[in-house]
């Protein structure tokens, strides 16, 4: 009788155990809301590109790599695998108001990170995790994530050296 009672108690406990959800060690994490930062503005007056890049204005479309007679500033600073690449590897020849992937699929300027991610897959992966790049706003709520082009110049992506802010005053130079 005793054993039966014990067995019943035990089975009851087990059965009960299956219905009770396991205790939560940690509260479920707050849902992060990721908000895309507004893409940085293009140079004033440059967009839409089709106002100049227009077959009606320029005649026949020439897609061979060459030194251009315009966009001098960009050509001068262009340093992004410049040996192997030129404008039309990213900019779409047929519709200059968009970029294109290697597949030829168009990508708008506000989604340029998709284009960057084709080659820089490791950075793209880290950026989506929040490890590469920068997020501002709320660590537990609405986070605004910056795009590649907020920090990197797409034509010359390597960071340029900057002037540091002043060093601290040495204790010997401080009045007490």
């Amino acid at each position, binding site marked *: 009788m005793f054993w039966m009672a014990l067995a019943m108690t035990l089975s009851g406990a087990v059965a009960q155990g299956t219905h009770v959800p396991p205790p939560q060690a940690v509260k479920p994490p707050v849902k992060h809301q990721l908000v895309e930062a507004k893409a940085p503005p293009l140079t004033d007056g440059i967009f839409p590109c089709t106002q100049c890049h227009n077959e009606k204005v320029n005649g026949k479309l020439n897609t061979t790599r060459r030194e251009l007679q315009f966009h001098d500033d960009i050509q001068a600073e262009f340093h992004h695998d410049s040996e192997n690449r030129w404008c039309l590897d990213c900019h779409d020849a047929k519709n200059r108001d968009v970029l294109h992937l290697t597949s030829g699929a168009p990508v708008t300027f506000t989604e340029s990170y998709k284009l960057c991610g084709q080659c820089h897959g490791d950075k793209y992966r880290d950026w989506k995790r929040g490890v*590469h790049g*920068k997020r501002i706003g709320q*660590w537990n709520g609405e986070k605004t994530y910056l795009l590649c082009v907020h920090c990197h110049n797409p034509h010359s992506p390597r960071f340029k050296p900057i002037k540091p802010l002043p060093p601290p005053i040495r204790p010997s130079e*401080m009045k007490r």
Partner: protein
Amino acid sequence: MNPMTTSNNSGGCGGSEAVDPGRRDVLKFLAVGATMATGAACDLEGFFRKSFRELSPADVRRMVTGWERKYSRKYGKAVTVSEAGPIDGVKFGYGLDLSRCVGCRRCVYACVEENNQSRKEPQIQWIRVLEMDKAHGIDINHSDIYYDAAEVPRPGKFYMPVQCQQCDDPPCVKTCPVGATWKEKDGIVVIDYDWCIGCRCCMSACPYGARHFNWAEPSLPAQEMNPKTHVLGNRPRPKGVVEKCTFCIQRTREGQYPACVEICPVGARKFGNLLDPESEIRQAMDNKRVFILKEELATHPSFFYFYAT
């Protein structure tokens, strides 16, 4: 000159000179008299108050209201003092990407402005940026915090910002003789500026040089004062107390990122909840190589250096 009667700090523990116990009582009496004469009831309350952790929420609220009045008058703007406590289920963690930092010191000055540090004489900066040789690796003995370059990063150098590591086993807390510093539930090590006696034991105990002392009345121009403060964080400090990084307690307990994270021009700084696997800090720790500064001392920092590349 008795510092008790001249200092205007609300804690009333400004007297650090050696005074014999009998005289001290008399001076205390005089100090109380002087405070009463000026009619500063809140200072009087501060003088007799219990240690911060023993105060009831109502007491804290009353004290905070007093400070808000006092600071608003002093700095000529509406100053708020928050007493927000830790958020449940949150343990703060900080990540710094050593492969990205360029040593530009933007974080140092953003921190100074956010946290109302003394600007000069004494100059107090909670973040120190160490410049080190790539050839040597992390070698604190050969690091330089006074580098003054036209441009950074300099060739052959790398940079390692150091601030309070918010240790889980903090030597500073263990050494404080009066219990004026402690670790909060969310991992932030805080200081009660009115309880600190200025003995600086914590400064010598800290292996990271993260604690700083107000050798003189802090210089904080009224127009530069950040009016959004926290009682255990960036509220104006009196002379003779220790201060340090609090992960911007006034911001982070309200969900914001610390000021240094938001200013960093290279995105080297990551912050979040260590208990949340989706947070940036956890993503960095789970996927990158992590380095703990002076790990051999078993201080168990909540601050992690990592290499993203």
